[in-house]
């Protein structure tokens, strides 16, 4: 093993802002976007791009803008499943949540603004080395940021 360049990937540098309130497949060209999330009243699934070394460095930031009543807002690894996937990029999300339950979750399928979220302004940052996703969540209560699968 040695120090090495993994790759590089163009970024919008947080100069592009989008809102999310329903299912969406993110792509390679979405790196560096700021996503403001309006949590819907039913579960929503935003899929990250398919992992590959060609997207090493892909990153983005999700900010919870409004709270729903009973829907999880999933930010999930690539794959044709809604929860607890076993194919595609399942088990590749490494989560660290700080602020509330303060916990790490290894090899998850998704990170979420959970249905019990109460804190507008909670943030999830996501980045990848091309092999795994690394998610850093800033929460106020345990339900703000959650992960499973």
């Amino acid at each position, binding site marked *: *093993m*040695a*120090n*090495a*360049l*993994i*790759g*590089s*990937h*163009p*970024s919008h*540098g947080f100069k592009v802002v989008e809102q999310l309130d329903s299912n969406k497949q993110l792509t390679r060209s979405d*790196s*560096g976007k700021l996503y403001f999330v309006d949590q819907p009243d039913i579960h929503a699934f935003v899929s990250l791009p398919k992992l590959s070394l060609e997207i*090493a*460095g892909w*990153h983005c930031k999700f900010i919870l803008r409004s709270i729903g009543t009973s829907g999880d807002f999933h930010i999930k690894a690539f794959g044709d499943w809604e929860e607890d996937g076993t194919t595609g990029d399942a088990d590749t999300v*490494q*989560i*660290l949540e*700080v*602020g509330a339950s*303060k*916990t*790490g979750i*290894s090899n998850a399928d998704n990170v979420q603004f959970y249905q019990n979220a109460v804190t507008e302004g909670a943030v999830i940052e996501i*980045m*990848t*080395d*091309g092999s*795994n996703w*690394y*998610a*850093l969540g800033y929460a106020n209560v345990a339900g703000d940021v959650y992960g499973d699968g």
Partner: protein
Amino acid sequence: MANLKIGSHPSHDLEVAEKITEAKQLTWNDSGKLFFVEQGSGSYVVNLPKLSTEIAGWQGKFILTKLGDAVEINGYGITAANTPATAEDLEKMFYVDFTHATYEEDNTVDGVSFGASAATLGCIIDIHTDGSNWFVMGHGDIANDIVKVG
């Protein structure tokens, strides 16, 4: 005193991803990189560039991706905590650590490390400089994920 620009420094804007698995001297050109850090068998040191107002704005983000022995991210010329004692950039780091077990801050440290008993893949260290000091924020789960040096 007055509000004023300190400087500016080119950045990769998190578009470049690098893997770190062994000792490394970072340079001015590394600002804005995502560094994915692998701990291994045996600790090692990553050194930050030499402080100067010419690098005001230099920044880097370090993410732990493999567990093992400690990896220190130290000021320039510091091979391990407080050694050598004449290193110019000793005690030039302002350190804030948010973890499950502890909240800790110290404004005279030599470096920051992913500790020898780190247990959390994905814990993160963000580093910035104004050219005179390093400002470090660590996000961990257990106390040993992020440990100050010196």
